[in-house]
């Protein structure tokens, strides 16, 4: 079974801080990591490979330094990595990103199962998986927390808002996974040495390798554009209530009574 995993390099958003003066993101010193759910996607692929035999290829679109996530994936056990990197890909929205990833998959051609994370922590769109599936004309199974992949059919448990469903799809199929699916393994030291050596199987493809015109990808190929970014400002006029607990309680009850809200019935 040929499995392709889509992995994205993202800034560790729990470390992201804002410059209090400018309101801009401070990017210096923020570590780049594999998008957390993509590690679960990779773990899912590796465990399918262990059960039914197959080959795992990781694909990432990003700047040259995104090679790091590919190396890490190979150190975890992926067989091959493809980095899609070209200045022309920069500034892509999900339309242009899914075009780029979709064309790369078309060039790979031989895939049975494509696994992506549900969403990337920098954009939180959760759109890439379904858009790549539609580009390729294959079915999609999103929000997957349990996966059973056989030769020509995949059975998944999808999380719904108020329940779950068990669903079956023929291969080739694209699956987006949740963190609950599994516990990702760690990259090994030997794996890391292999991944960064010249024997590791990593290719870098640019726009012409996937046969796309530069106006169809990156910012020029995007359909949506960011026109403004700003820091959420939510400060309210805060009224401090002071005194003994009993006095605070009656101040609060009065304050709401004045606003025509009665606490309790």
């Amino acid at each position, binding site marked *: 079974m040929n499995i392709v995993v889509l992995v994205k390099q993202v800034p560790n958003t729990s470390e992201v801080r804002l410059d209090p003066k400018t309101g801009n993101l401070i990017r210096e010193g923020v570590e780049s990591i594999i998008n957390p759910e993509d590690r679960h996607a990779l773990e899912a692929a590796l465990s399918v490979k262990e059960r039914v035999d197959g080959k795992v290829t990781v694909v990432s679109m990003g700047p040259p330094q995104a090679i790091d996530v590919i190396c890490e994936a190979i150190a975890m056990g992926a067989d091959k990595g493809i980095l899609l990197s070209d200045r022309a890909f920069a500034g892509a929205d999900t339309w242009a990103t899914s075009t780029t990833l979709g064309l790369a998959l078309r060039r790979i051609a031989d895939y049975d199962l494509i696994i992506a994370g549900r969403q990337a922590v920098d954009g939180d769109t*959760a759109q890439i998986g379904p*858009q790549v599936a539609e580009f390729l004309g294959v079915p999609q199974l999103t*929000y997957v927390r349990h996966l059973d992949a056989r030769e020509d059919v995949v059975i998944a448990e999808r999380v719904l808002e108020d329940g779950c469903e068990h669903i079956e799809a023929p291969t080739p199929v694209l699956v987006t996974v949740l963190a609950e699916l599994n516990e990702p393994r760690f990259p090994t030291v030997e794996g890391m040495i292999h991944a960064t050596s010249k024997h590791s199987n990593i290719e870098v493809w640019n726009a012409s390798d996937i046969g796309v015109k530069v106006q169809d990808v990156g910012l020029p190929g995007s359909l949506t554009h960011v*026109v403004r970014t700003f820091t959420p400002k939510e400060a309210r006029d*805060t009224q401090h209530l002071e005194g003994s*607990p009993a006095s*605070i*309680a009656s101040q*609060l009850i009065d304050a*709401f009574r004045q606003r025509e809200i009665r606490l309790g019935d």
Partner: protein
Amino acid sequence: MADIVVNLEKCNGCGMCARSCPYQAIEMVDKKAVWIEDRCTLCGACLEACKFDAISGDIPSREVPLFPDHRDVWVFVEQHDGVFHRSAFELIGCARTLAADLGQQVVAAVLGDGVRDKTATLIHHGADRCVVVDHSALAYYQTCTYAHVISELISKHKPNILLIAATHLGRDLAPRVARRMGLGLTADCTRLSIDPDEKILLQTRPAFGGNIMATIVSRYSRPQTSTVRPGIMRALEPDEARTGEVVVEDVNMAECREFTKVLECVMNPDKGIDLGAAKIIVAGGRPMCSERGVSVLKDFAEAVGGQVACTRVVVEEGFLPVEHQVGQTGLTVRPEIYFACGISGAIQHKAGMDGSRYIVAINKDADAPIIEIADFAIVGDVFEILPALTKAVKEQ
């Protein structure tokens, strides 16, 4: 690729360019603009922003098409077993404002089996027109079938704007449709408005885990499509006197290939909690992680007729089930009153509750971020304050 060049003589250090850049590719160093190539996408915002002609560069120009035939604000009405999801009413409420600004109509698109007689309530809540596709294949949601029907409706009716709830279903469906129809799509919006000059949809959403907000536009395709976070927009009060048109459409299902087979659907047992509908929420954080803590919360919630909620910490520590979690990875709520008891106010928690009408914060740390967003702040020990509040409410 082209370069952005700053003319240092003309640059007076005003910083307009840096503020206008959506990608932070210009920084002010020693009162001069400095271009950071790695981040630049050549969008051209800085050239437009500079009043002194100090920035030049070869920005690829792209013609913005006109869409004279695309009209109206459409809402995809999510339903399960013929029951409309609450988000449908919220989206219709939001669509009314947008449609009024454009002088266009609100259209509710309803897909399902046996739904054609249920549309009156959508009109009462603000829809001008309902377009219904009633077919047995639509009884249960399946991606490709629904994507096919929505795509057919888009081709035929040419909406200007399409809103879909950012539920699991909506976030499964919308990208599939957008890719098929060549539409720009903005995920999980929390604010929508019409640009007064350009008359396009301004779609605002959190990014980087809620650390920044981004406003996104879709100039090159129609309908302008967004998924909208449930629990944020306000539904209108139903007006039973409102009337509207109901159009039943036939869509050719033979052309649609559904790949997947649903084997089983298991609904969670009704936990009897619906935070989205609660008027008063009593939420606890880390210090409530004990049996005593939870019972102090519950006692107060019961006294005020509210529901109990919590931060992720409380769920992780196993003191309340996940249905009670408010925040980025939990629920978004906007009750009349939100009591934050021993909650620091992390950005991921605020994301789920800062739309509440009134926020009351009880925290022993006067500098906790939650205090800043509170209408009423009580600096003190929750284990003293809450029981006193419970007692006072009961006695009033």
